[in-house]
């Protein structure tokens, strides 16, 4: 087990915050992409019009 010393809480909190912020950003980006793709599929294509 890695011994992080007396400031271990600060180190782990830094990595936890990074993980939470990046996960939220990835989740929002992917979910927006999926919603846009699904909505685009529901509307008839007008590219040839």
């Amino acid at each position: 087990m890695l011994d992080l010393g007396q400031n271990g809480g600060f180190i782990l909190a830094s990595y936890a915050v990074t993980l939470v912020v990046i996960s939220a950003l990835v989740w929002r980006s992917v979910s927006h992409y999926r919603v846009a793709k699904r909505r685009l599929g529901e509307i008839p294509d007008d590219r040839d019009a």
Partner: protein
Amino acid sequence: MTDILTRIANPQRFTRVADRMLPWLAALTIVTILIGQYGAWFVAPPDYQQGETIRIKYVHVPAAWMALFGWSMMALSAIGSLVFRHPLADVAQKAAAPIGAAFCAICLITGSLWGKPMWGTWWVWDARLTSMLVLMLMYLGVIALWRAIEEPTIAAKAVSIVTLVCAINIPIIKFSVDWWNTLHQPASVLRLDGPTIHSSQLWPLLVMGLAAALLFATLLLLRMRTELMERRLRRQMLNAARG
């Protein structure tokens, strides 16, 4: 370079290229993060003064680099949008803002978590920290501006002007530690006379910097794809409403 930019100016061509690149970029990002984290936790030694707390550096510094890179990229896109009227420039600008804001938030929070045990305080109003907080407010400002104006072309003009004016803060952030007496340490990697940190700590930091850049690129392409689809949806709905 101009030729490449002209070739991918067509949104449909860009979409095809982005779709092919996204899975590879995502995979490369994950592999790079794993290598960087292995180096940060198991190869890099503890600092002789800061001990294990130095490991915060491997998330704090790459996040700061990407926060600065994000606005610089937005400023270049603003020129592309205002001067060259490149059809993807304002799409890239809009897609980059939340990514840059997220990296800026990580930089500020992890910096505070690093400052408390090392400086004895969560925050000081020194030039580096304050200019970084201003960058965060700038990101939030342009995100709000994109949402406040419904018509994308009008929003793009307003955001481009604001982005270019506010870009003055980027060199201020970079050189704040040289121009003013700050609690924040001076640059130790991006220096004219070369890095001042030991190679055993430098390579995991550079790998994590590359990982952050790859993550930025992956999310940028994904968000640009989404924005292009949303603009097409908007056009189709307007056409349908007009009959």
